[in-house]
């Protein structure tokens, strides 16, 4: 049907964001999910964390964090990663209720994530099952933005004495001097991603990426 670019633009209008909005003034929701595993068919979401931003300003108190009672069985291998045990989530609300709250939190915002396509796959799966639609809204991926900056510009690289080739969130965070306290909690990871995005944002306007339209072009997941 639509390519990703057009989908993004259509979403912009649908959620009421003017694509001429400056990247320094747009509202963003930076999001991360923890999963039972990486296979969309077999696995499902265990927790969702998100933090709101306006331009480069991270709103510390405006966060979203929910544990979800997973639709599929939790596997030992993933429990090790995120540290959430089956008994912890057994009595949590289902994804249906959580999804409503998340949609509300993301209203009027561009969704941001690191390797967001994976999170979106799972969110879309749940959305489709629940409402027949995809997870709405324009979205950008910090991993993509990083790639784009690395290919197109020298000033960011100069500022940080070079850029990393690794794509892992925590390697990047370390390289760009972002403090990481508790890894692999969806909210903390979203917060780290937000800071990574914040680093990029402060350089983007001078790199020819002044508006949300431009941002969506370079950062599509």
């Amino acid at each position, binding site marked *: 049907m639509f390519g990703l670019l057009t989908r993004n633009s259509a979403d912009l209008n649908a959620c009421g964001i003017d694509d001429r909005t400056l990247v320094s003034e747009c509202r963003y929701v930076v999001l991360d999910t923890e999963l039972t595993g990486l296979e969309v068919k077999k696995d499902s979401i265990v927790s969702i964390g998100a*933090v709101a931003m*306006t331009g*480069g*300003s*991270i*709103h*510390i*108190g405006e*966060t979203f*964090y929910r544990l979800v009672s997973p639709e599929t069985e939790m596997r030992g291998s993933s429990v090790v990663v995120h540290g959430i045990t089956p008994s912890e989530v057994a009595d949590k609300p289902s994804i249906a209720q959580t999804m409503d709250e998340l949609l509300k939190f993301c209203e009027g915002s561009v969704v941001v994530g690191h390797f967001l396509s994976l999170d979106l796959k799972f969110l879309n799966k749940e959305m489709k099952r629940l409402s027949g639609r995809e997870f709405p809204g324009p979205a950008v991926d910090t991993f993509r933005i990083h790639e784009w900056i690395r290919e197109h510009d020298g000033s960011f690289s100069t*500022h940080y004495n070079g850029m990393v080739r690794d794509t892992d969130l925590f390697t990047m965070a370390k390289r760009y*001097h972002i403090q990481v*306290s*508790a890894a692999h*909690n969806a*909210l*903390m990871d979203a*917060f780290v991603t937000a*800071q990574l995005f*914040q*680093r990029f944002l*402060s*350089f983007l306007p001078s790199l020819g990426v002044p508006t949300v339209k431009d941002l969506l072009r370079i950062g599509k997941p």
Partner: protein
Amino acid sequence: MVIDDVIKFFQEIPPFQFLEARELRSIAEKVSMEFYPKGTVILRQDDPASDALRVIKKGGVKVSVRSEDGQEVIIDHRGEGDTFGLMSLIGKDEKQKTTVIAIEDTICYLMKKSQVLPVIETNPAFTEYFLQFHFSKYVDKTSRDMHAKSLFYGSSDHLLFTTPVGDIATKDVVTVTQDASIQEAAQEMSRNRISSLIIVDDNGLPVGIVTDRDLREKVVSRGRDVTDMVKDIMTLPMIRVDVKDYCFEAVLKMIKHNIHHILVIKDGRLKGVLTNHDLMMLQGTSPLSFAKDLESQQSVEGLVPVSTKINRVVGLLLKEGAKASNITKIIAELNDRLVRKVLEIAEAKFGKPPVPYCWISFGSEGRKEQTFKTDQDNAIIHGDTDSPALADQAKRYFAAFSLFVRDGLVRCGFPHCPADYMASNPRWCQPLSVWKQYFTSWVHTPNPEAVLRSLIFFDFRMLHGDERLAAELRSHLGSILKGQNIFLAQMAGVVIKNRPPLGFFKKFIVEKDGEHKNELNLKFRGIGPLVDIVRLFALESGVSETSTLERIEAMKGKHPSIDSSGDELAQAFEFITLLRIHHQVEQIEKGEEPDNFINPTRLSNLEKRILKESFQVISLLQDGLSDQYGPGMVGG
């Protein structure tokens, strides 16, 4: 999670650390976090004022202003834990007054005025901190910090919140009528030594106010004709408070309207004027009832229990938020009374002295700058006599007398002076003529020992007895010092040798090893050099006061270095002294022996910065001395 880190960060930082956990959380929830790469102009002068307070989480900024001739002048560097944009929260400035640039990658927490103001307004500790910051810069506030940490905080003894304006406002208001000229108004102000004047109409009702600032900004700097009417330059409308309002409300209004004088109204009539200065003075005095206790004692035995109370008073004063200079003044007053009492007891025991005498104290006692009981530093000047028999009798009398006093003082908690600078040492119990010879020879032959003696003895102060003897010695000193540049240069050489412990890049220099590893000595490396400089200035300008702050005050208008940095010097002295007293009280409360060593890493960010600034003032003046006395100056 995310927010807990923010709360943890704010718990370490004044004024946020004064907030309760619940309030801190409600503030943290509204905080946002921004990142500025090195070189970012965060705030720009003359832009609309920022609507947020920024707290530096990581990195650093420089604050600068553009002078009238277009030059950027850096006025401050701020680092982790420091704030900027403070006044935007409570002030009413519409334009940004400074430019703030990130000098490294900087992360700030931001608090929007609209979100945080309600919390601030309902929180006295917070508000007061800001007020203090505004009108008395650092020194008084730090005593307030310490105050905040004490148990007394939060009780009703908060002077700003409990004192009605009417209690401290200047009551005799000086006024002129509307037809007065600028010059007449200024003359009236000079005559009354006041910084503001009220202009009244024919019914005596106030219509405007003129302050020093108006004269500066509207008359002198614009070359305005002084025969113009004063009403043309007066400020309208006048901000007023009621006599029954608490001082705190007056301060709020002063800040809001950016003024330093406020009218005090009672029943619709002008009752007085309240100034910044009045408010600062509010933090001083404390009645001391047990001085009476002291007076009623008739024996050394009876004095001992009373004297032990003095240490306790210090802790109390500190907790009440008293200024350092007031604390030391009160200690001096109490110790003086104690010593006088011992002398009276001795006089009663030994009978009337054969010749008149004067008991003097010197060193920190002479300067009224003792914190806790320090060594005895005292001497006797007695009258001269032509009769050898009488001289001999005096010698024997004062020998026994001074021994008794020495031992009595030891029992009251003043230890022996290790260098034996005591009246019980025959060398320091001499007739006036011998004292004059001592002083003359030290000044004329300024070898290292003589300079050292001068540093100690020239701070002498008469404590008891015939004051004419001390006065004559003081005036003798004044006359022999005239034109003695070699002596002063020698003294300057000694003074500049003891540099404050501040290294390159403004890092504190601490002890490298030993018992006090990583600590610095506030007395010898901070207060010492400061006192020495001020003493040298006092000798240069011939003022006879002996206490450091009184010397600074007395030298205003007489000594160029004091005119340029006297206030900073006084603040530095207050601050270091306060830090020292606070440290010692803490030790005493823990049951330890008080000393002068502090570990600078244990200070709050604010305290560190003020201490650095204080040391810098001293350093700069020492550099000035090097220039002044030049290469010919050879150290002692």
